């Protein structure tokens, strides 16, 4: 029987990971991820999990230990944030190019400078091209559920890729809310035992891992890697349906649309700010604006087709990003979404918006302003310069 609990996001992540029975866990504490490490070590101390834990001396080692353990054939879990992810970059890239199905929670936190502790997915978005699957979630239930789903996705023979489950630091990590914790038997039924066939360091079947490789062959591995992402693109949607069937909760797969069937413009969000965006959409609709909401869940693989389907035919769209694409001057996912829309062949007015950097709150006022900006574009038929929401509200 599932159990109703009150958990903060970090506890939901630790609980989700524990239910997946990882063989080896290695993690290094960093705000706001620290409690994940504490909870897991406590589970181990209390005999609630059988995993072997390694209390490593850095994130570089955290990712390296799980990479080694995964190469030996184990299911592994780790978690980090921000500077920790940056320190991991070397083995992070390698984990995906070795096709190791590691699952790592990223408790999104801004990158320094300036010195900051607070939320923002700049950390994970900056490494979106390092070959991992990245899924961004909205609430604590979704954290727990997505971690279970992530192992299944990662270990699929057609995917074999590491997965990041990304959630906002503090807004989710330190927020407590109702979470339904599935029972172990149903998780076991959903997630079979991991048996690696593609790579394994084992004296019984000696192989070399990462011999010096020529560019021709490397190109081939890269192609195979992108095929893994293509497979994931289908599987994320399929698994969402399967998960819903078994656990009764669905998140829409790659993206989720809200009030979007009859919309004439679309607001795009990601992560915990989506909840406030839902409120704003309801409010705007009550005031006569037929705005729809698109919540981006998967950033890698990028759900181009579903984004196009959700936006095509509308009069404008706007994206609220909690990140900055330096040099573009917009948010990061804005560029991805606009790029996907180019394939559609239409020139729908697009509004890049940035809000909530460094853990600043994205409030209902910010979201209403975002909707106003999108409707300005609907009226003018023109795309906008980037709107910095927190700054605009201050001026107002």
């Amino acid at each position, binding site marked *: 029987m599932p159990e*109703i609990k009150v958990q903060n996001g970090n506890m939901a992540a630790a609980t989700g990971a524990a239910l997946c029975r990882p063989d080896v866990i290695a993690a290094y504490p960093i705000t706001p991820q620290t409690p994940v490490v504490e909870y897991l070590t406590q589970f181990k101390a209390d005999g609630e999990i059988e995993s072997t834990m390694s209390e490593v001396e850095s994130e570089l080692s955290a990712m390296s230990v799980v990479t080694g353990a995964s190469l030996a054939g184990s299911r592994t879990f780790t978690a980090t944030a921000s500077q920790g992810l940056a320190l991991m970059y070397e083995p992070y890239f390698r984990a995906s190019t070795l096709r190791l199905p590691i699952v790592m929670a990223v408790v999104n936190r801004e990158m320094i400078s300036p010195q900051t502790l607070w939320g923002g997915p700049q950390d994970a978005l900056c490494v979106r091209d390092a070959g991992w699957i990245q899924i961004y979630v909205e609430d604590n239930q979704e954290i727990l559920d997505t971690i279970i789903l992530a192992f299944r996705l990662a270990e699929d023979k057609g995917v074999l890729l590491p997965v990041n489950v990304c959630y*906002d630091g503090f807004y989710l990590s330190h927020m407590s809310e109702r979470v339904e914790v599935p029972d172990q038997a149903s998780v076991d039924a959903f997630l079979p035992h991991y048996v690696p066939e593609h790579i394994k360091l084992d004296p019984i079947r000696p192989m070399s891992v990462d011999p010096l490789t020529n560019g021709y062959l490397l190109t081939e591995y890269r192609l195979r890697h992108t095929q893994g992402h293509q497979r994931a693109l289908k599987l994320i949607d399929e698994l969402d349906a399967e998960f819903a069937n078994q656990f009764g909760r669905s998140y829409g797969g790659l993206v989720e649309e809200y009030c979007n069937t009859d919309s004439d413009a679309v607001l795009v969000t990601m992560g915990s700010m989506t909840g406030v965006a839902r409120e704003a959409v309801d409010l705007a609709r009550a005031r006569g604006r037929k705005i729809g909401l698109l919540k981006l869940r998967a950033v890698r693989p990028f759900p181009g087709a579903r984004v196009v389907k959700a936006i095509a035919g509308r009069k404008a769209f706007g994206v609220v990003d909690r990140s900055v694409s330096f040099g573009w001057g917009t948010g990061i996912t804005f560029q991805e979404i606009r790029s996907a829309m180019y394939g559609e062949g239409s020139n729908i007015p697009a509004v890049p918006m940035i809000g909530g950097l460094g853990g600043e709150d994205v409030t209902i006022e910010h979201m209403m302003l975002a909707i106003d900006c999108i409707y300005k574009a609907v009226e003018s038929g023109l795309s906008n310069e980037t709107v910095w929401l927190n700054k605009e509200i201050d001026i107002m």
Partner: protein
Amino acid sequence: MKEIRLHGIGGMGTVKAGEILVHETVKEGKYGNSMPFFGFERQGAPVTSFVRLDDKPIRPKNKVYQPDCVIVLDPSLLVSANVFEGLNDNSIFVVNSRIENLEAIKISDRVARIAYVDATGIAMELLNRAIPNTIMLGAFARATGWAERKSLEEVIVKFFGEKNREAFRRGYDEVKVIELGEGQL
């Protein structure tokens, strides 16, 4: 949906008090969320916590800006923090204070009901430590009626042990509730 803001000082269990309210409401089959204002958690530093309670799932995952209730866990905050900021009309103000402290400050005209109790005094007497959070939850339950008394008491005992049952009850019993419509403080 009810929105609540708690003002406290590091070490008083302010964040935990917010979480307890969520535990109680979830136990009753309802919904709630709570989050601390994110800073360095340090003994003695001001702490703010935000709570939402509702019968249906709660979508906003952010701070509370227009609270229906403010809980102040330490009288010093009446002066040092803007405890009335953004208050909704007809709000409930639950404060750890003796009447003298309250008389010294200007109460926002958006407050419809004041509930005050000398939680620090009770805490020192019962627990020998100035941790007023469970007493203030008792006061809150009485003043608002938003949490079921028995249920909240059980959650408190589960988290903090038997000693706090008495603390909660004293808070509930000894809180003075004044309807501001009825008379002046």
